[in-house]
């Protein structure tokens, strides 16, 4: 490792290293610089692209509720709201299932069951987004419209979240499909976290006379709590950026409504929908600004997740 490091960062005379090594290192250096350049150009493009709209309406752009490209009115709030709402719905549904699944896989199920079950959950991550979208349109949305939404509307209509006619298409269904999509992410991370918890901790808790349930509660869930948070943050990040399946199911209406049954729009979906046909400068710039915001938020969330995992690891190392 140190040798590679030296090769990379220290200056050499050509005679010190073999020529082929030198070429290899040079190649690696170029690649490393390329990655940085791509990243920098991405940030530059997003920043430069969004400057027009930020000059036009300032930071109020992110608080504007009106989105009407024909009259040059651009406000990003409905998309930010839609992104957050769908992601939260997805987390509320997916997190308990994913954490339970991870507990099942690491603590309860025997290998014979845990292996294929874990494999199946991981397979969920391999399905392309657009396939989820298609399945959503033809299977999930009609099912939600005919069974789930009427049920929620009938028994929980006192809550503002379950009001309005059941379309099948809307924030609720988009959140549901997101939940399925982030399930493998959260499960996989939680499983790693639980496996990282030393067995001695579990044995200790059991030896003190606790039941299996109490052992899972204290030695697994509570001990791995920050890891679970990191898994949730990762899932949240994935849900926010998800585009295709959401675009196909959310109904694409830039409105702010408390009801989960109503159609909405997300930051990713509006970019996918409108960028090919956006011609006016302000319109293109608004989409770039939304992209920039999405980029920053995703970066922040995944950074947060990394930070949490780092802290957890340090705690266990002690």
């Amino acid at each position, binding site marked *: 490792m140190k040798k590679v490091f030296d090769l990379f960062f220290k200056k050499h005379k050509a005679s010190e290293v073999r020529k082929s090594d030198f070429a290899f290192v040079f190649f690696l250096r170029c690649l490393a610089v390329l990655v940085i350049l791509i990243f920098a150009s991405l940030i530059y493009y997003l920043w430069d692209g969004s400057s027009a709209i930020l000059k036009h309406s300032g930071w109020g752009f992110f608080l504007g509720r009106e*989105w*009407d*490209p*024909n*009259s040059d009115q651009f406000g990003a709030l409905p998309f930010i709201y839609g992104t957050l709402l769908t992601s939260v719905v997805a987390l509320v549904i997916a997190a308990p299932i994913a954490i339970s699944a991870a507990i099942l896989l690491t603590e309860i199920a025997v290998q014979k069951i845990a292996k294929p079950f874990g494999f199946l959950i991981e397979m969920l991550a391999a399905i392309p987004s657009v396939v989820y979208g298609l399945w959503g*349109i*033809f299977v999930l*949305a*009609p099912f939600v*419209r005919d069974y789930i939404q009427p049920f929620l509307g009938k028994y929980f209509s006192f809550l503002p979240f379950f009001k*309005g*006619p059941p*379309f*099948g*298409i*809307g924030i609720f269904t988009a959140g549901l499909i997101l939940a399925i999509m982030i399930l493998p992410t959260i499960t996989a991370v939680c499983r790693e976290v639980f496996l990282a918890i030393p067995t001695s901790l579990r044995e200790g808790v059991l030896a003190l006379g606790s039941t299996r349930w109490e052992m899972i509660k204290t030695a697994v869930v509570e001990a791995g709590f920050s890891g679970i948070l990191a898994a949730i943050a990762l899932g949240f990040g994935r849900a926010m950026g998800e585009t295709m399946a959401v*675009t*196909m199911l959310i*109904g*694409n*209406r830039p*409105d702010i*409504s408390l009801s989960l049954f*109503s*159609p909405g*729009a997300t930051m990713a*979906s509006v970019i*996918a*929908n*409108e960028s*090919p*046909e*956006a*011609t*006016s400068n302000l*319109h293109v710039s608004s989409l770039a600004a939304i992209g920039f915001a999405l980029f920053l938020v995703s970066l922040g969330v995944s950074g947060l997740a990394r930070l949490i995992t780092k802290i957890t690891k340090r705690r266990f190392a002690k």
Partner: protein
Amino acid sequence: MIRSLILTAVLFVSATSQAAVTINGSGSTFAEPIYTRWFSDFQKKNPGAQFNYQGVGSGAGIKQLIEGTVDFAGSDDPMKAEDAAKAKETVLHVPIAMGAVVVSYNAPITGTLQLDGKTIADMFSGKITKWNDAAIAKLNPKLKLPDLAIVVATRSDGSGTTAVFSEYLSKVSPEWVGKNGKTVKWFTGSLGAKGNAGVAGLIKQNPGTVGYVELVYAKENNLPYATVQNKDGKFIEATNASVSAAAEGIKKEAVESNFKISITDSAHKGAYPISSFTWMLVFEKMPKEKGTEIVKFSTWALSEEAQKIAGSINYSPVPKEIRAEALKAIAKIKLQ
């Protein structure tokens, strides 16, 4: 064996390199099938050039034309003045084919639904909420209309289809004036889906849904669509003939506007009111090598033969007198 392989490879390379000129176009997804079809037919006669077309959307096509990354653009919407000002040369709008937007629905109605402009505008503004609304019943005295809520499906992506449809609404309903365009602010509670396929999916999946799709798409997917009352007072079904009729009798206006003419809500007899041209956008001054091929192709596209091919895949042919004028304009293209 190896020798023969090399020989084939050499032959292949020389065969492809014969097509020295490559012409790239992009734009309207609506027009993509007709360009693809025309290119394959045209290249059989004229192997000197290789034509490519990418259906990236009218807006993106226009942008690429302005930037000079493509040699021509396909658009269902005439170029705006601000875009035209950005282009390095004047852009000629060649009307190469016609299309229509139909109001398609999923409702248990036996028989053909008849609608007029105002009713369509009210449905797509969220004012008419039931299929058995008095306004619809009045237009369809013979039909039994269900007591079913209307769900409105629209395009969520910016599209020429939306531009044509909303432009029609702006002509038949005072409330829609100035609100038309490729992306429209639809009323709260209406659903949006990406592409014709997305809207068709919503219509198929949800009983009670009404939406607008291109005629080609409705026909290929066997979706029912309403006949629409035109200015003449007749209920017209969208067919190749009735769409073409919408461009009859407008020769003078077409020439005066350089073919950038709207033909929605046409006053011509038998005309389907939600019709439009799809244009091939080319520069009026072009470099000789590429320009020659583009002129050759667009001239051929306006021929009787090419228009017949268009008709066979559900595009409506451009009326003869308009084509004659367009050919005159093409003949004026300067090659340098």
